[in-house]
């Protein structure tokens, strides 16, 4: 097994409150030392990280790799390469694949595909209800044994509150976190854009803020009753953050994340029917965006995810309301988070924490750190590398980026997955 030294990098490991210049050594797939603790270490390969950031491999709490079921959009192979080249070594995938992840077989299939590609690991979320239909509980224990790190009903709401209650209770008994995409489907109806001045002008069916906040409130009350752990995915409204904050204060075991696009874009970007900004939940007001950023910097929101949704060209080649929602974001996750650092919304260390130790904690994993003995998922980042986002240059099979033409900084130069150098940038 190769022994590896990453030399002279600025090591940031939020879990261990580390921010220092030094070396990291890797042997037998594990981190053997941080900083200069192993002076006698003889490496087979040395990576010069002078002037660069060295941090744990990133953990993306939500990315859709479209496999199984929609391989015409993307595959685990195509998206794994896009992800690792941008520093992501672990990905959590929601259960709304085709077929749905409501059996051990589908959960295992996804992990086996990831193993065979061997560039990153995929943590599947199991379906909370059978077929995501919101009626019968799924076999959560079987899903857990098959590697599911949590359960979720994805975008498919559970209209019957009694089912939701029991699902939360049963998940609690199984010691599984419930991942909630809060949306009241009666209030969102056939909506496609944030209810406000823009949706009014463009004549787009609106999704009111209450579609999210009512669902968050309802879920919080039921979580309080069931006592389990829950994670709120892709919050989009200022009011939701306040609700989560109150719940945390009263001792509920809840956490929350936000999608990277919602930290940079607003309803204004939908203007002129920009289909690449057709997202779900919708891009909301400037005030909401600022509250999401503020929620991150104050720690009310725990993590940032890509909410990666690669699409084929046909999915976006229609009038706005007939296009499929979602943006291809996985390879811009890190540069877009670094842009928040540039704007002084997050410190570099907090930014890395939102992409490593915090998502790891949400998933109940002991990864996302550079602690000696942990699996060597490590990335080296050139923070100053400047680039312009070019749609056609994206590695993801989905070219549907709302960030085409944006100027960003930050390029992953090396990525180690399980101690193996699996990616090295060309320049």
């Amino acid at each position, binding site marked *: 097994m190769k022994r590896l030294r990453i030399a002279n990098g600025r090591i940031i490991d939020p879990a261990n409150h580390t921010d220092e210049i030094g070396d990291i050594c890797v042997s037998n797939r594990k981190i053997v030392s941080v900083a200069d603790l192993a002076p006698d270490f003889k490496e087979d390969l040395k990576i010069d990280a002078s002037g660069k950031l060295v941090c744990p491999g990133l953990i993306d709490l939500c990315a859709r790799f479209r496999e199984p079921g929609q391989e015409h959009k993307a595959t685990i192979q195509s998206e794994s390469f896009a992800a690792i080249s941008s520093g992501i070594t672990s990905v959590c995938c929601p259960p709304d694949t085709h077929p749905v992840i409501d059996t051990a077989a589908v959960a295992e299939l996804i992990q086996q595909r990831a193993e065979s590609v061997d560039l990153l690991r995929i943590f599947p979320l199991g379906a909370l209800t059978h077929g995501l239909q919101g009626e019968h509980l799924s076999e959560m224990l079987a899903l857990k044994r098959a590697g599911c790190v949590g359960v979720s009903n994805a975008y498919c709401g559970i209209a019957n509150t009694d089912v939701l209650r029991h699902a939360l209770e049963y998940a609690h008994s199984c010691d599984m976190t419930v991942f909630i995409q809060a949306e009241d489907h009666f209030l969102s109806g056939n909506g496609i854009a944030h209810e406000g*001045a823009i949706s*009014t002008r*463009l004549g*787009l069916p*609106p999704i009111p803020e209450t579609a999210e906040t009512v669902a968050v409130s309802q879920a919080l009350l039921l979580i309080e009753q069931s006592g389990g752990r829950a994670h709120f995915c892709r919050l989009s409204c200022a009011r939701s953050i306040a609700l989560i904050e109150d719940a945390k204060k009263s001792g509920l075991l809840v956490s929350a994340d936000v999608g990277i696009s919602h930290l940079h874009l607003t309803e204004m970007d939908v203007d002129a*029917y920009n289909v690449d900004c057709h997202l779900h939940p919708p891009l909301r007001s400037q005030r909401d965006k600022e509250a999401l950023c503020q929620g991150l910097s104050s720690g009310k929101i725990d993590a940032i995810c890509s909410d990666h949704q690669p699409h084929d060209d046909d999915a976006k080649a*229609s*009038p*706005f309301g007939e296009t499929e929602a979602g943006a291809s974001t996985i390879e811009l996750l890190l540069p877009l988070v670094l842009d928040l650092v540039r704007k002084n919304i997050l410190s570099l260390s907090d930014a890395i924490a939102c992409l490593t130790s915090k998502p790891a904690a949400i998933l109940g994993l002991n990864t996302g750190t550079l602690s000696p003995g942990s699996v060597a998922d490590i990335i080296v980042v050139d923070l100053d590398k400047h680039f312009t986002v070019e749609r056609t240059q994206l590695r993801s099979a989905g070219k549907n980026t709302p960030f085409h033409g944006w100027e960003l900084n930050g390029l992953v130069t090396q990525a180690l997955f399980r101690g193996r150098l699996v990616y090295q940038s060309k320049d």
Partner: protein
Amino acid sequence: MTLNNIQLDNNGRLKHFLTTEGLSKNLLLDILNHAESFVSVGNRAVKKVPLLRGTTIVNLFFEPSTRTRTTFELAAKRLSADVLNINIAQSSASKGESLQDTLQTLEAMHCDMFVVRHGSSGAAHFIAKNVSPGTRIINAGDGNHAHPTQAMIDMFTIRRHKPDFSSLKIAIVGDILHSRVARSEIHALTTLGVNEVRVIAPRTLLPAQVETLGVHVFHDLGKGLEDVDVIIMLRLQRERMRSALLPSELEYFYSYGLTEEKLRFAKDDAIVMHPGPINRGVEIDTQIADGKRSVILQQVSHGIAIRMAVMAMCMGSLAELSEEQS
């Protein structure tokens, strides 16, 4: 890219007509002035001018329509264009080819202009962005977004009765939420500089933050009609009753239906408009619809002149005329 600059060529002339939003007052007045000159064409023995001879215009309707499609067809024929009507019901479109494929197929037949009606907001804009550079698009209604030619017809009708826009108070009554006509009218009226635009409707039929469009909101018909010069009634679709937006047609007519009694709140010479088709006894009393204040049938007849003007302007065949005048 904003909605309006895709509508104009590099010289600021109308290329596509997708929305009244963002167009200049002069351009809107140009449309009205050109339409005036076309009104007489319909009164001639030979109702044709040769402006668009050799041009092929396709009426591409993804939603059923009789009057809009008919007036577009007549307008095109009076300009001596060749006209093709294609009606694609939403259901068959969803079964078969995509909108983009339909367009490419038609473009391959070298059509010069598409007049498009589609159920999805932004459809005309999508088509304008995706057709080859020489092809012109006129929006004949897209979802709840815009119906600019209907709005210009109404501006034309208003101007014939009340020539000075700046003195006018205008009320739009009814289902603003689902009305593309209302949105296009509001943009046109505010651009033309009317004194005040009011919208009158229950909260359930108003879109969020409608006041950001530059209108005053009223929930009471009597108060809203006080002192207005023009009343535009909107059609109330019956399916709204089923979607928990309104309790009943009777209650709606009682509160928002235009009757003799309610009309007394408006100015004595106020005119009553309706883009049609009307629901008698739902949003408007039959006696008002057929009464002397009603200009509803004039709106229909002005439809042809406005559509001739817009078609000719988009095809560039009136550009020289416009320059001579200015």
